[in-house]
């Protein structure tokens, strides 16, 4: 992996090139407009083999059929890259992407970049702002889930309890309300079209569902019927089906 002009990536194992609609003819038109974007940007995404911070990026790109290189690194590969000083990302962290050879770090910057390329950022400045603000609040849930995921021993039980008892209800209630206020919760979070806020929420809910299974609390989301419907709606987006079928199954 190199910056702009350099050598091709030595990272081997989990490199998967995502295919766009040129390889498949989707039955339905999901009305993804021609984005006024960096047309046919070459995108290489680097992250671990988990969903966590990078999954919304992957979902958005697959949804819109934008080609990208989905590099999933093992901890060892990541260690080597950092050690060899080949890393061009700015903050020593993943995810990071090379877009036309230029390095961009920070997951939310990348989510937004992908959404803009895909035309799913929001239809006007105000919708964009509302979608952005939802992403920030959804990200808070992801951070709380990360604390649950990475805590051990007694800490773990306390984290889980706080998440299930406090964080989740508070955040879910607001998101449920947001959905209800937008077309009665029959569509998406903002406006009349899917946005990055929907994909970020979907990714969060998938992890919550896994947590619920692990804790044998199947009813964790029962108080949020609109969110449940929303999750189903995103899960069933036609252009996501191939990816959802093929992608690695990860807890977090």
């Amino acid at each position, binding site marked *: 992996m190199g910056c702009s002009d350099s050598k091709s990536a030595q990272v081997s194992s989990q490199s998967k090139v995502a295919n766009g609609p040129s390889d498949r003819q989707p039955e339905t038109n999901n009305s993804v407009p021609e984005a006024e974007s*960096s047309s046919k940007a070459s995108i290489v995404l680097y992250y671990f083999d988990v969903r966590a911070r990078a999954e919304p990026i992957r979902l958005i790109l697959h949804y819109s059929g934008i080609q990208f290189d989905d590099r999933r690194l093992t901890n060892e590969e990541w260690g080597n890259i950092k050690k060899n000083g080949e890393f061009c990302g700015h903050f020593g962290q993943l995810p990071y992407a090379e877009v036309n050879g230029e390095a961009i770090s920070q997951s939310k910057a990348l989510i937004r970049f992908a959404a803009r390329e895909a035309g799913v950022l929001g239809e006007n400045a105000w919708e964009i702002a509302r979608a952005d603000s939802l992403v920030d609040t959804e990200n808070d849930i992801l951070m709380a889930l990360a604390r649950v995921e990475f805590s051990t021993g007694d800490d773990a039980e306390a984290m889980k309890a706080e998440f299930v008892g406090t964080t989740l209800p508070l955040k879910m209630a607001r998101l449920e309300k947001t959905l209800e206020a937008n077309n009665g919760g029959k569509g998406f979070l903002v406006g009349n079209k899917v946005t990055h806020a929907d994909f970020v929420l979907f990714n969060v809910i998938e992890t919550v569902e896994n947590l619920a299974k692990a804790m044998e609390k199947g009813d964790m989301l029962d108080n949020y019927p609109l969110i449940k419907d929303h999750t189903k709606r995103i899960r069933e987006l036609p252009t996501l089906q191939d990816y959802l079928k093929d992608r690695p199954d990860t807890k977090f």
Partner: protein
Amino acid sequence: MPTYKLKYFKNRGLAEPSRLVFAAAGVEYEDIRFDREQWQSEKESSSEKYPFGQMPVLEVDGEVISESKAIARYLANEFGLAGKTNLDKAKVDMVVDALQDIAKGLVEMLFGKDEAQKAEAKEKCLTKTIPTIFSALEKMLTSNNGGDGFFVGDSLTLADLAFIAHTDYHVDQLKEAATLSAFPKLTALRERVLEQPNIKKWIEARPKTEL
């Protein structure tokens, strides 16, 4: 021009990047600041004005959004301070997101659970978090036309303004550490932006608060 109201506490805090955007753009707005008590009663009496129960919020002709970064980004886009291409916008976002980590470190340092946790957070902040971020930003700035202009492109953006906001330390502990001085391009950028007439005017006029 729409009517803008920005509501926050009596601090610079998370609202300052947005205030700097208004200042840089020369756009009028109502800079509303609540103390804790006022905030409590606001929250109760006007909860619909605070979608996530938090501040800052921005009210534009009566409609509301929350989340400090979404607000700053919206305003920057409205006033042409957001970066021109999609890639430039991503770079601006990247800088703003990274700077937020400094704010987070600061919060942990000042408002940690107990003295031990605060001391640990301070150690981490001063020896790791801030130097790492500043080092990366120095590199990024330098790679943009030698670092004598702005973070992204060839004009002022939210990235530069957020940088000012997040290095505005009147907190004694950080003033001493003053790790910015180790980074010449960043230091010069800060001086350059602070000299811009609109920004200078705001800095002189704004309420003086510790945080």
